[in-house]
C-alpha cells in the first residue's frame, strides 16, 4: 500500500535537487487543452513532454495548458516559445512527436519544420 508518509522522503530528495538548479530562462511549452484538444489526444502529448523533460533533466522549461487556440482541425496543438520569444506552433501532435521536439527543438534549438503549422497547411 502507498502511504502518504512516503512524501516525506520525496520532499527531502526534491530539496537536494532544487539547490543545484539553474534559474536561466528556458523554453515555454503550451499545450491546447480545450474540448477539441482533449478529444484529439492532447493529454498523452502533455504527459510525454513532462516525462521527456524530466528524463533529460531539463529544469528551466515550463509546460503549461491553454484553452482552444482556434484551429481545432489541427489539434492537438502545441506552441513552443524559445528564450528569445520566438514562437513555433506544432500541429497534429502525438506523444512520439513530442519526444522528437524535446530532443531537436528544446535541446538542440532546431525547429522540427515538418510538424509545424506552416508545413501542414502547404500540404
Amino acid at each position, binding site marked *: 500500500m502507498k502511504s502518504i508518509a512516503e512524501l516525506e522522503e*520525496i520532499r527531502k530528495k526534491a530539496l537536494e535537487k532544487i539547490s543545484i538548479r539553474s534559474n536561466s530562462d528556458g523554453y515555454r511549452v503550451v499545450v491546447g487543452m480545450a474540448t477539441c484538444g482533449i478529444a484529439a489526444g492532447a493529454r498523452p502529448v502533455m504527459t510525454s513532454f513532462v516525462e521527456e523533460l524530466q528524463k533529460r533533466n531539463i529544469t528551466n522549461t515550463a509546460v503549461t495548458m491553454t484553452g482552444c487556440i482556434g484551429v481545432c482541425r489541427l489539434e492537438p496543438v502545441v506552441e513552443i516559445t524559445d528564450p528569445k520569444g520566438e514562437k513555433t506552433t506544432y500541429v497534429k501532435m502525438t506523444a512520439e512527436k513530442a519526444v522528437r521536439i524535446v530532443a531537436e527543438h528544446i535541446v538542440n534549438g532546431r525547429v522540427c519544420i515538418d510538424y509545424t503549422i506552416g508545413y501542414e497547411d502547404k500540404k
Partner: protein
Amino acid sequence: MRDLSLHLMDIIQNSIVAGGTKIDITILAYTKSNELKIIIADNGKGMDEEFLERVTDPFTTTRNTRKVGLGISLLKASAERCEGYLKINSQKGIGTTLETMFKIGNIDRPPLGDIAETIVNILAVNENLNLTLTLSYDDEPFRFDTSEVKSLLGEVAINEYEVLKWIKDYINEGLKVTFGGVLYEIDS
C-alpha cells in the same frame, strides 16, 4: 471523448476557467442501483439562471472566438446514451456543481479511463489549485486531498516530477481498491 477521464479533464478545465481555486471530485459506484456517479464541485464564479438553462446547448459558450462549446453537451449526450443524466447546479459568485450518472452495466458506458493521469496533468500546470478526489463504493471511501499533500511537502512544489509520480500511483491504487471488480475495466 473516448473515456470518462477525458470528460473529467474537460469539465475541470471549465472550473479553472471560471476562476475556481478549490475543486472537489467525487466518483461513486452503487451496485444495487447499477449507477456510476461523478460529481464535480468548484468555487468558481458560477452562472446565472438564464445561462444555466442554456449551458447544455452546444451553441452556448462564453468564448468569443466561435459560437460553439461542446464540453458539457458531449458529456450530457454520453450520459443519456447510458440511461443516465447530467445535472448542473450553480449560484453566481458561489460556485458550480455538476453531477452526472451512468448505468454501470450499460453497453454504451465509456470506461473510466486514466483518472490518475487527468488529475496529475491538471496539478502539473495548476500548482495552486486545491483539489480533492473521493472514490467510494458502498464501504470506506478513498480520499486524496492536495492540501494534505502540500502540508507534508512544505516548500517543495506539488508539481515536482517525483511528487506527481507518487500522486499517480496513489490514485491508481485507490481506484483499484475501490472499483476493482465493480467496474469491469478495473482489475481487482
